[in-house]
């Protein structure tokens, strides 16, 4: 009953400040924004046409010919009459038009798709999902023209989610710049909008909303009212801490669950892995809030508590980032060493590391990163979790999202130890202080 009472008390405090309501409104607006994103499958001619518009713009800038040289798609048709673009067989001509033979020769020497081989390369690189590709040049009477005929039969794509889509924002603003497979678009929304942007917002607001809980409790004239109740001081502080966590949990729950539902409804992609963001973000906040509670207890100042939590956040991010870089370089160095000296012992690579830092600086940073709470690793784990839920193995590999990370056990264990230490210090101070 006491726990619920303190929770209710914290709820009143947060609600009274209006920040919590503001955050709920913002979360709902955020969810509505994501719900406003439509995903339309693009046809092959649209996709090629979009690329050629860029190519033609480059050609006009490069040669100053004001559009005299251009590459276009002609005779585009779906040979098997399929309605879904990923079930279609395609036939099309890529026509290069130049003012004269000399210009065409120049263009053919460039990487632009004006020869059969460059067109093949383009299709193999960018439209790799089209199968049974045949490319042949059709002779042209005009020496300034080139026509490359392309035929494809079938695709590797078996479902709409792996086909390129164009997102439309706010129910009607096309954003072709973000075109990608439906899965990759969902990944971008979940990773960039929710995990990165939303995560920062949730943590920041969480730190601000909850920073006053402990200092307000310790205000002269208020503290007596709490600690005269039949409850231990440690119990009281821990309940306040859990109350703060529940706020962020609630905020994260509403945001992530809302986004998950609207993405599922909009795309048909339901990835339970995305929901793991709720405990991950809450746990990340638990680290920052433990810092906030300790400094709130020591100084009775909400401002100091906020600053301490933000500094801790920045430090963890910076050290985590540097550690990530060091780990990546070390893994690469190890791979190279194995290739060059199979079975050999590691050798001293010199005074400077691959990052350009002195070895001792790198070692110190690495050690510090290993013993500090693992905020960065949590964030990286969250990204990987989202990727595993929505992307295929090939896409994960292509985006290099499959490198070896520290284990969940290590990440959570070390962070939990820090939380326990910070809260332990806060409780000790609270227990021993007068009034």
């Amino acid at each position, binding site marked *: *009953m006491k726990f619920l009472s303190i929770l209710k008390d914290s709820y009143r405090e947060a609600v009274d400040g209006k920040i919590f309501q503001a955050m709920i409104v913002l979360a709902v607006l955020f969810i509505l924004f994501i719900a406003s994103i439509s995903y339309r499958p693009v046809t092959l001619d649209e996709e090629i046409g979009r690329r050629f518009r860029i190519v033609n713009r480059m050609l006009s800038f490069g040669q100053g010919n004001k559009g005299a040289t251009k590459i276009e798609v002609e005779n585009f048709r779906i040979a098997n009459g399929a309605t879904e673009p990923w079930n279609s067989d395609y036939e099309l001509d890529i026509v290069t038009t130049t003012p004269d033979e000399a210009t065409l020769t120049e263009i053919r020497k460039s990487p632009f798709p004006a020869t059969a081989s460059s067109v093949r390369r383009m299709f193999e690189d960018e439209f790799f999902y089209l199968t049974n590709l045949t490319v042949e040049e059709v002779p042209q009477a005009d020496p300034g023209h080139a026509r490359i005929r392309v035929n494809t039969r079938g695709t590797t794509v078996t479902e709409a989610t792996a086909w390129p889509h164009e997102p439309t924002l706010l129910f009607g603003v096309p954003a072709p710049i973000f075109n990608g497979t439906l899965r990759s678009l969902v990944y971008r929304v979940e990773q960039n909008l929710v995990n990165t942007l939303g995560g920062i917002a949730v943590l920041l607001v969480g730190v601000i909303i909850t920073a006053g809980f402990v200092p307000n409790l310790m205000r002269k004239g208020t503290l007596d009212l709490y*600690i005269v109740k*039949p409850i231990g001081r440690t119990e009281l502080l821990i309940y306040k801490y859990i109350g703060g966590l529940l706020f962020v949990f609630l905020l994260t729950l509403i945001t992530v669950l809302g986004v998950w539902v609207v993405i599922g409804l909009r795309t048909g992609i339901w990835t339970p892995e995305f929901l793991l963001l709720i405990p991950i973000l809450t746990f990340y906040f638990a680290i920052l809030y433990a810092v906030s509670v300790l400094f709130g207890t020591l100084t009775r100042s909400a401002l100091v508590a906020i600053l301490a939590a933000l500094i801790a956040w920045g430090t963890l991010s910076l050290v985590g980032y540097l550690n990530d870089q060091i780990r990546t370089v070390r893994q690469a160095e190890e791979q190279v060493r194995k290739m060059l000296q199979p079975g050999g012992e590691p050798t001293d690579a010199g005074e400077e590391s691959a990052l350009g830092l002195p070895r001792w600086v790198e070692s110190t940073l690495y050690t510090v990163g290993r013993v500090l709470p693992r905020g960065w690793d949590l964030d990286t784990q969250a990204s990987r979790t989202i990727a595993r839920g929505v992307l295929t193995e090939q896409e994960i590999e292509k985006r290099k999202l499959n490198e070896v990370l520290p284990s969940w056990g290590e990440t959570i264990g070390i962070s939990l130890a820090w939380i326990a230490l910070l809260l332990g210090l806060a409780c000790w101070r609270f227990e021993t202080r007068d009034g």
Partner: protein
Amino acid sequence: MPVIETRELRKNYGRMPALKGVSVTVEKGQIYGLLGQNGAGKTTLVKILLGIVHKSEGAAQLLGEPAGRPTVRRHVGYLPEDHQFPGYHTGYSLLDFSASMYGVPRAERRRLIPETLELVRIGHTSNKKIKGFSKGMKQRLGIAQALLHDPDVIFLDEPTDGVDPVGRREIRELMARLKDKGKTIFLNSHLLGEVELICDRVAILRAGELVREGTVADLTQQKGLFELRLAPGQAFPDSEVRKLGFDVQQAGDGWNVIPPAGTTIDPVVQLLAGAGKNLRHLVEKKSSLEDVFMAVAGGN
């Protein structure tokens, strides 16, 4: 078993002593007043008893257990001085929070809260945010939260602070009713008249030391000073009285007589009767609590 008992209780804030070996005993059903100037150590004593402040030395017991234990606090109500109730609460929600912390069941709280708000005459503020309360309303709410869970011991630190005269009287009456119900009240107050009116026993602290302790009657009695007056027109035989060894001083139309040590006023009464004097007024003079307080706590 005393409800409150301290033995040689000491508290130092750094090098500054706040309590210098205070020993008090409060029995069940008493209203015990603690007096002292600002900084005398009154609030520190209460806070040690409630576990808000840690003692440096000595012993403090509340209801037979070491003071400050959460289990003991279940039976204690407390109105702190200069309290700041969280402004986000309403009168009702604050009492609901407070009572739930004491383990009062929900149904009981629903019944008790309106009753208690009415008891302290702020029933109309039930749904009003505390940040809009006047000082007097906050004080009444503070008393309500101290009483709601039906504690055995109630600590009231300046309960009438900010309350108008009518309200003060109501609070005094409330304390009397609580005493009748067997509750023990520990009262810190600057209002000496109030303490004199309601307290069974009083202690006076000066700079952390207990300088006087006893019943109000004990403290205010001026042993050995008698005020007497004769019938109009009769002369007081002061020289004969002095010959008996009494000290005599005229005070207005009467006389103050101080017997020598170990002697009663009886020889003077017999002398006056023998001399045919008609005694109209004879009383052993008492001082007010304020006089006593000023004499001992004020350093006079």
